[in-house]
């Protein structure tokens, strides 16, 4: 059931207008205008999204609002429309992207107050949000791919925002290239799906029509699912393509918040939920998703335990949390995965914005070993960050508790006992490293320099207001998905299930017991962090000393970057410099180009000898020419 709602176009139109305004008029219009237009064009889609949601709720479950805007590609029987679709899943995504994204835009106005390039910054931020909104609103795979590539491009532009810094530019390129590897898989996945459908005369990539022809997709479901998941590992920073995300930290902090919370990394989870009907055809593909997610989740959590850069800890925690979402959708509990995506957007945006406020207050310091005791100096930041940390740790009644519980429950009930245990351990690690961050930053002795002590200050209102709003959301955001049977109960899942489907539970279990266990583990993590970083501050060093090998591996991030460099980057660089650059480029291509020039130059050099300025030699040549012409005619006549 689809109902026409052309106003959906406004959701894309306003950010697009924002991009144009900031790009062409931003620098001329001045900072105040950009600071108003930048966030405003993101809040309009939020308002339109709310109206659409109200309309959607009045319709029967499983209905969708559609806006077929125009015909985009027509090639024989194959055609793709530029059409938007707003169902329950899209509703959640649009509101999260535009709501959280809008708050981040407001915060940016404060954060970038000192930066001269504010117009370019807001151009990219608006474009980023636009691309993500297009991704979630698209009603077919190809249009989704446009948004998919758009967020990739914008992540590159924003990570390398301060491009005059060589390392930052390098990290931007790294993000672009690594996600591009995944995108190649994604594209081949689209081709696979299109070919399988076209072989039976169904020339479409429309989600609704794909869903109606699942029988045709069944033979390719496994291959297509895995290929599309490869794209998701790139965008959503899962093993083995997660390496770009920790390095994406070099962009301005609001960018990190946008990448980690509202846009980009959630795209992979959304894509799998959107194509849930395809994935359920191939349970093996879903198992791969679940296993990769869980392993990534655990792996990233262990790395996060020992990092000392505040943003790097948060980056690994994002990888870990996205792993959770993958575990959720991998067990078929798509609603649980999307639920965690939503709550994660709240508290992860908050965490990053708080970290940004701390960095801002300390004049660019990101090393937690040089912080401490900031609680009294930054009251709002420390309180909101504590709320976010409680939320990500899964402490009742904060948002993360409900969503993480739902995922672990789904893992348990669908029979993935091993994955459940790893997920539970990861939950403990999560609360441990997050509270380590809190204790090192806001509690204990101050390790600031005298100069920093002097100017450390709470952020301006443009930055603290988004923090407070997000803190409230981190607290209450999970309440839409209470455990089944409690008050309004599982409202979130009931809203989504008609669209994404619901897993069949194979194992009966008491929800309460699982929740209690998860909370226990999370609290244990907090206690460990407390003992290590507040009670006995010497203990971490002692442990690092005794388990030196393990500590080195963890601080070295398992040396994955080094391994990739050795196996892939270095040989590629070698091949590029020695063969492609020196051999092909220099010898062949440059040779052809230079050869053309040299031929002309040599010809000119020879011909200019004729122009010797001697009138009499010209006359001689003229004479010879005349004789030649004459001889020709004489020869013709006499023949």
């Amino acid at each position, binding site marked *: 059931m689809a109902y026409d709602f052309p106003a959906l176009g406004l959701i894309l139109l306003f950010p697009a207008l924002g991009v144009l305004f900031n790009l062409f008029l931003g620098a001329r219009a001045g900072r105040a205008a950009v600071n108003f237009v930048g966030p405003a064009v993101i809040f309009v889609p939020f308002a339109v999204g709310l109206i659409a949601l109200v309309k959607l709720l009045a319709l029967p479950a499983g209905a969708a609002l559609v806006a077929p805007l125009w015909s985009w590609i027509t090639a024989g029987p194959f055609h793709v429309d530029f059409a938007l679709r707003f169902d329950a899943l899209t509703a959640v995504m649009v509101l999260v992207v535009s709501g959280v994204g809008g708050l981040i835009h407001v915060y940016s106005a404060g954060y970038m107050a000192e930066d001269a390039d504010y117009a370019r910054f807001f151009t990219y931020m608006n474009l980023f949000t636009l691309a993500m909104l297009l991704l979630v609103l698209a009603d077919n795979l190809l249009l989704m791919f446009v948004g998919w590539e758009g967020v990739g491009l914008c992540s590159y532009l924003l990570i390398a925002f301060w491009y005059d810094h060589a390392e930052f530019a390098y990290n931007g390129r790294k993000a672009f290239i690594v996600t591009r590897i995944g995108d190649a898989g994604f594209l081949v996945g689209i081709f696979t799906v299109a070919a399988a459908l076209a072989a039976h005369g169904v020339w479409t990539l429309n989600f609704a029509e794909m869903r109606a022809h699942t029988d045709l997709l069944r033979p390719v479901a496994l291959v297509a699912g895995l290929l599309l998941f490869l794209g998701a590992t790139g965008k959503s920073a899962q093993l083995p393509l997660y390496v770009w995300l920790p390095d994406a930290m070099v962009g301005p902090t609001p960018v990190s918040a946008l990448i980690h919370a509202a846009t980009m990394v959630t795209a992979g989870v959304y894509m799998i939920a959107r194509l849930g009907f395809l994935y359920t055809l191939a349970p093996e593909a879903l198992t791969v998703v679940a296993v990769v997610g869980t392993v990534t989740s655990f792996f990233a959590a262990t790395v996060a335990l020992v990092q000392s850069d505040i943003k790097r800890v948060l980056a690994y925690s994002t990888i870990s949390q996205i792993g959770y979402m993958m575990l959720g959708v991998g067990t078929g509990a798509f609603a649980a995965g999307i639920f965690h995506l939503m709550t994660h957007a709240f508290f992860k945006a908050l965490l990053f914005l708080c970290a940004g406020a701390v960095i801002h207050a300390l004049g660019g310091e990101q090393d937690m070993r040089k912080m401490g005791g900031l609680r009294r100096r930054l009251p709002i930041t420390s309180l909101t960050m504590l709320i976010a940390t409680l939320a990500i740790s899964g402490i009742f009644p904060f948002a993360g508790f409900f969503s993480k519980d739902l995922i672990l429950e789904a893992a348990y009930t669908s029979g993935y006992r091993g994955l459940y245990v790893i997920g539970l351990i990861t939950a403990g690690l999560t609360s441990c490293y997050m509270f380590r961050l809190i204790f090192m930053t806001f509690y204990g002795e101050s390790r600031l320099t005298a100069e920093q002590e002097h100017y450390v200050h709470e952020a301006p209102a443009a930055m603290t207001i988004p923090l407070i709003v997000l803190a409230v959301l981190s607290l209450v955001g999970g309440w839409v998905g209470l455990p089944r049977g409690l008050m309004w109960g599982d409202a979130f899942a009931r809203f989504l299930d008609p669209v994404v489907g619901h897993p069949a539970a194979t194992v009966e279990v008491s929800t309460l017991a699982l929740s209690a266990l998860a909370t226990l583990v999370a609290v244990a993590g907090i206690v460990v962090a407390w003992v290590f970083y507040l009670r006995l501050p010497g203990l971490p060093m002692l442990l690092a000393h005794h388990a030196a090998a393990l500590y080195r591996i963890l601080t070295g991030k398992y040396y994955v970057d080094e391994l990739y460099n050795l196996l892939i980057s270095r040989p590629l660089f070698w091949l590029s410099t020695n063969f492609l650059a020196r051999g092909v480029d220099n010898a062949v291509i440059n040779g052809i180009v230079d050869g053309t020039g040299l031929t002309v130059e040599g010809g000119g050099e020879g011909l*200019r000898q004729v*122009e*010797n*300025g*001697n*009138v*009499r030699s010209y*006359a*001689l040549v003229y*004479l010879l020419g005349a004789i030649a012409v004459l001889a020709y005619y004489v020869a013709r006549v006499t023949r």
Partner: protein
Amino acid sequence: MTPVSYFMGLSAVLFAIGVAGMIVRRNLIVMFMSIELMLNAVNLAFVALGRQLGSMDGQVIVFFAMTVAAAETAIGLGILIATFRNRATIDADDLNLLRW
């Protein structure tokens, strides 16, 4: 009547002298005179052939050629004087600025 071949022979000899003078001599005035000689050799051929063929065309062309030659002489001598004033020479081999 004098055979036309005599005229043609004289014309060819005059033309050859003109060509040789043009190529061999370096004095611009002499070269100029050589050009006039060649023009008049051709004029001779034209009138001779015109009479031979009983056509007026030959004579008409000669009048044109003489007109053009007069104009050409005026301009050429003007250039020559201007050159001499500037360079104090009328040696063709010294006037070789316009090369390469």
